[in-house]
């Protein structure tokens, strides 16, 4: 049987070698998981396949035909039947879903969007990912925007569908639906390449697995050789065994409330009441776009609440500016590291010191302290490259996230932490470090609120998990036996 994709690739960005002879062979009608740490080159590899990025050297055979890599671009790849859903989205925010779907795809001098919209709606309904074709992308949550791209790629009827971390922004039930759909597509003869770090997804969906590490294919696994050994896959990804994790016991009864919300309403968030006690890790679960964003904005003070009270360490901070809340012991990990979390053009050291008067000094910047602070955080979080002067934009997603975490969780006198999607699109090694830091904050006595679309993350990390649905807190459950099913039901409104 001819492979759908058979490739050997080299790619470097300047002095940074991303792929060195990385290989990938995809069998027809299979789901192929491409796994590896952030920075391993997974995204680059699939972008080359889809014609988004050009390879330096190598060979690529698609559907049995050798293609010239030098002229392989998105239009050629699309014509050959390769569809891609990119990790951070490739939609123009100012355009609607249907306009994005038609962009560069629909030919002819007159653009008729109506049939495209119909097809999108029909495709969405078929795969269980309902979308509004006329919604403007900028008004959608990250998850909804990605769903729209996924449906747009499916509409074109690709013979090879590439998904770069598609499940990062989906709820568990949606993930299940998507994975089931991918299996069905594969059964119909479409080949699927899925980039992911989540081993349970790999186990649930993949026929074959290719593991990339530092731009090299280090291992391949196939269900043809028997059941997948996920611990062997994890070892191949990281190159060693994962360190053991610490556990933080839940706070004693009567521990003081570190972070309290009383009837807080803001935008889509309605009447939210929630207590996070000192030393407690509380998770907020829910499908993206159910009020989590507003909850975080209300806690951080980035938007003024319409109603209600926000308490920090027993003090009413409802009217306080973000700066005052930070001074009073709040840390805030923003939802999107590239839009709000980091100054992408600034160095690691400058990002770690951004807004941190305790590091920079009040007026004159103490550059020696900024540098020392950076070295400490680079060491603690294993930020790579370990160069304080490296520019944030040049870091992988996981390392960018570590910089945000490092800046926020190293604030002195932490009372409460609100972390939004702290490990979205981040590799296993970084997830471990970031969870370690969040646990350490709770262990040191801060109340930690973790907002995540990844229920597994919350179950692994938190003592207690509340669920938001359509802007309201609809229930909660202590982490442990039976939590997953109960929370899953709450998240979809089935409970």
């Amino acid at each position, binding site marked *: 049987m001819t492979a759908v994709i058979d490739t050997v690739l080299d790619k470097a*960005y*300047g002095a*940074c070698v*991303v792929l060195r002879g990385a290989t990938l062979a995809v069998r027809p009608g299979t789901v192929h998981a491409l796994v590896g740490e952030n*920075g391993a*080159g997974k*995204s*680059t590899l699939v972008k080359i396949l889809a014609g*988004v*990025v050009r390879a330096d050297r190598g060979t690529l055979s698609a559907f049995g035909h050798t293609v010239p890599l030098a002229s392989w671009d998105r239009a050629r790849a699309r014509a050959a039947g390769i569809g891609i859903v990119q990790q951070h989205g490739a939609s123009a925010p100012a355009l609607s879903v249907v306009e994005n779907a038609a962009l560069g795809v629909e030919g002819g001098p007159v653009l008729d969007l109506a049939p495209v919209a119909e097809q999108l709606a029909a495709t969405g309904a078929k795969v269980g990912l309902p979308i509004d074709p006329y919604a403007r992308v900028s008004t959608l949550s990250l998850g909804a925007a990605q769903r729209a791209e996924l449906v747009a790629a499916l509409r074109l009827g690709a013979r090879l569908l590439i998904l770069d971390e598609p499940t990062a922004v989906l709820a568990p039930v949606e993930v299940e639906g998507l994975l089931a759909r991918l299996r069905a597509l594969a059964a119909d003869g479409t080949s699927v390449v899925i980039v992911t770090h989540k081993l349970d997804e790999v186990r649930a969906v993949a026929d074959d697995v290719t593991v990339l590490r530092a731009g090299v294919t280090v291992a391949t696994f196939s269900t043809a050789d028997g059941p997948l050994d996920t611990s062997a896959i994890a070892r191949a990804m990281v190159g060693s065994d994962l360190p053991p994790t610490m556990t933080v016991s839940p706070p004693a009864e009567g521990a003081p409330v570190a972070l309290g919300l009383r009837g807080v309403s803001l935008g889509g968030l309605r009447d939210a009441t929630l207590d996070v006690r000192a030393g407690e890790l509380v998770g907020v679960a829910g499908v993206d776009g159910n009020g989590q964003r507003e909850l975080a904005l209300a806690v*951080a003070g*980035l938007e003024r609440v319409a109603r209600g009270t926000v308490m920090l360490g027993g003090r009413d901070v409802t009217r306080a*500016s*973000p*700066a005052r*809340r*930070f001074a009073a012991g709040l840390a*805030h990990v*923003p939802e999107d590291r590239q*839009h*709000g*979390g*980091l*100054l*992408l*053009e*600034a*160095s690691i*050291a*400058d990002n770690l*010191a*951004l*807004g941190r*008067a305790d590091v*920079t*000094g*009040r*007026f*004159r*910047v103490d*550059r020696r302290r900024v*540098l020392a602070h950076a070295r400490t955080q680079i060491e603690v979080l294993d930020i790579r490259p370990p160069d*304080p*002067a490296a*520019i944030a934009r*040049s870091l*992988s997603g996981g390392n960018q996230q570590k910089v945000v975490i490092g*800046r926020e969780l190293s604030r002195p006198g932490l009372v409460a932490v609100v972390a939004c999607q702290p490990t979205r699109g981040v590799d296993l090694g970084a997830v471990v470090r970031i969870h370690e830091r969040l646990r350490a904050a709770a262990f040191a006595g801060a109340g930690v609120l973790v907002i995540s679309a990844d229920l597994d993350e919350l179950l692994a990390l938190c003592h207690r998990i509340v669920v938001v649905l359509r802007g309201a807190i609809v229930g909660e459950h202590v982490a442990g036996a039976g939590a997953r099913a109960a929370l899953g039901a709450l998240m979809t409104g089935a409970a």
Partner: protein
Amino acid sequence: MSWAELRPSPHLKRELIAVVIALLVSLAFGSVLMLVAGKAPGHVWSQMVLRTFGDEYLLGQVLYKATGLALTGLAVALALDVGLFNIGVEGQLVAGVLASGVVGAALPATTPAVIAIPVCLLAAAGAGALVGLVIGGVRIYRDAHEVITSIMLNASITGLALYIGNVALFRGGSTRGPDIAPGAQLPQLGFGGSSVNAVLVLAVLVVAGMWWLRSRTTWGRAWLAVGADPAAARCAGISIGRVQLLAMAGSGALAGLAATNFVLGHKHAFEEGLGRGTGLLGISAALLGRTHPIGVALATLVLGFLSVGGLAVADEVPKELTEMLQGVVVLAAAGAGPWLARREALQARAA
């Protein structure tokens, strides 16, 4: 924007290349124009350099031009650093000319320099700052775009200054107000009787001060953070509105201060049209200098050389030619920066 300071930013190289490209483009453009005018470019360029740098008076005039431009250029650069385009430097400069001229003339003739000079400097800076505050305030609190409001204020202030001059200041059919107190008059620096004066020293100090503020203090970090990414700055607890408002006040103050080069240092009175064009050319200096204080200072020397050098070779080519080049060099710099950035981005499309 050179933000990272632990070592020269990777953008520093790009910015320098952009400026070099801009200079080469204007050199080529100027040469073509000279050819069209039937002159040998090599001859005209070398004459421009030789005559300007070979003549003490002309060299002094270059420095005189550069003094005013450095201050208005820094004014524009400061606003650009926080993400605002202060096109109103011209109006803020006129406000400074009027304020320092009126206050200087109102001081008793016996006022000692130690009082007269600071008072006049404060008047000029304060008037400019006030205009800057108005522009910044309506932008931040009323969401009126600063480019629109400042263009309109330029016309209003120029008209207001002329009106006040006509009603109360101008003497005997001239457009010159009364002389400022002798104590407020700043000494010339020689240079063959050219107009360059002690404000040059002030400008050098301000350039150094702005460099220090921008790269060594939390204020500078806040400016650059707000300009580079308001969302990230906000998440880090920086108040965007406050930073932008203060920066607009500072920008206006610098523009107002530029007035002292003309009023205290040269004409010693309020005059209609004094310093005109220095504000708009300051935009060029800021763009060519890539908003970096040292870059702005160097850009003002280039622009000053082009305008004085044009006069020096006026017998060879019309002086409008070098005035055009002042525009070309800025256009090329403004175009080359984004062009280089896009090329880099294409090359380094995320891994």
